């Protein structure tokens, strides 16, 4: 099992969700996160005073899938989230040792 973390632009959340649902992903966890990468921060101006804001707001979408589906998930998420501009975000993939469905006690792929 793999966890795929997609960090991307907040307005792309709906597109990514729809694309993943279309290929059969049945659940996800979404959170609002802050950070910076190549895009860096941005400038805000209050009463004529400029402030550099280092952290940009992004959305993080986490899905856990069977190993065989990782390539499809990455392809669908990349296609849905890409604008081609700096700041589109990143996808991290990592291994998951175990999954447990709390209600039934099922484990492994059956619990996803």
């Amino acid at each position, binding site marked *: 099992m793999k966890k795929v973390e997609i960090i991307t632009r907040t307005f792309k959340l709906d597109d990514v969700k729809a694309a993943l649902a279309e290929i059969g992903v049945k659940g996800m966890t979404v959170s609002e996160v802050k950070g910076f990468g190549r895009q860096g921060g941005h400038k*805000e*101006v*209050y*009463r*004529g005073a*400029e*402030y*550099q804001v280092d952290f940009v707001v992004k959305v993080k979408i986490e899905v856990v899938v069977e190993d065989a589906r990782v390539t499809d998930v990455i392809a669908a998420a990349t296609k849905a989230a890409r604008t081609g501009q700096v700041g589109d975000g990143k996808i991290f993939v990592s291994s998951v040792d175990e999954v447990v469905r709390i209600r039934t006690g099922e484990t492994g792929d059956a619990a996803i």
Partner: protein
Amino acid sequence: MNAADTAFVLICSALVMFMTPGLALFYGGMVRSKNVLATIMHSFILLGLVSVLWAVCGYTLAFGKDIGGLIGGLDFLFLNGVGLDATGGPVENIPHMAFMVFQCMFAVITPALISGAFAERMRFGGFLVFSALWLLVVYAPMAHWVWGKGWMAEMGALDFAGGAVVHMSSAAAALAAVIVLGKRRGHGHTPFIPHNLPMTVLGAGILWFGWFGFNAGSALAADGFAVNAFVTTHMAAAAAALAWIFMEWRHSGKATTLGAASGAVAGLVAITPAAGFVTVMPAILIGLGGGVFCFLGVLLKNKFGYDDALDVIGVHGVGGTWGAIATGLFASINKATGLFYGNPSQLWIQLASVAATWAFCFVASLILFKLVDATVGLRASVEEEERGLDLTQHNETGYQA
């Protein structure tokens, strides 16, 4: 006694009362979320503290029988002699008690205005002691000089609704505050970003609404001068909101909601001394000037390096001073005549009142701040400031994560 005038002044008193919670929101939105409650409290609790002090001794110091042009006597201590007819009051058409409560609302909001300067670093106890002393030592004499038949009134200074008494006085105290308290931790390298601008814009809207009571009510009658003050107030605020956003559009590339809100307040400040003495077209010019000068005034603090957190000096100091001078230029009705209508001496009188107001209020406020700092303490500790004043001064937080 006139029933319509009495009803009007009571309604205006309620409108002015509403400005203080409006100011609380205006300021509260501009600070960081860890200080929102402390900032709101700096305005809101003065509805409690100042109102009681006003009834006990503030009113009589401002409006008691004149002593040497400097202060009111103790005739009205505990509101003795302030009755339900006009006896002892300044005008024949409304009960003395109605005038007292109208003035009470002005006394409440004025020290609250100062709190924008020392936001995010003041201890609550020191704040209360300072505000009480300031009301009696600075505000009451100022109100007496201008409205209580004191020396500024005798000199012929025009201040319809409080350019000197309310705005310049609070700005001079703000200047003293930033000198005594120093900067917030992290000033200059940490961004101090407003945490809730919708709150600030709502507050500005409430201030604009309440200001109709402030300025039109200062006619103390439901008459044509009240109508004039109502309209000049509205137009000046409108013009200043526009002027401010165009200034910042040129300066930094975008028009902002904070700029629109700040501009409206700047225009309201600028028209305050003039509202009952100028006609509508000059009021628009005063508003435009208020927007432009206050925008530039706010930029000044970066040049001087002082930390006037919410721009009390830039908005109330610059706007109040401009308004007082503009009154000397544009006055043309209500038995007042300014420079542009053939009376240059009015301008000199206005300039003298501006200088005297700044000098007295700054020096007296500086002494009071030093005194309270040395006894009760003003500045929050490093840890209190880092954790936020809401938690450390009030044991609560504005928002749950």
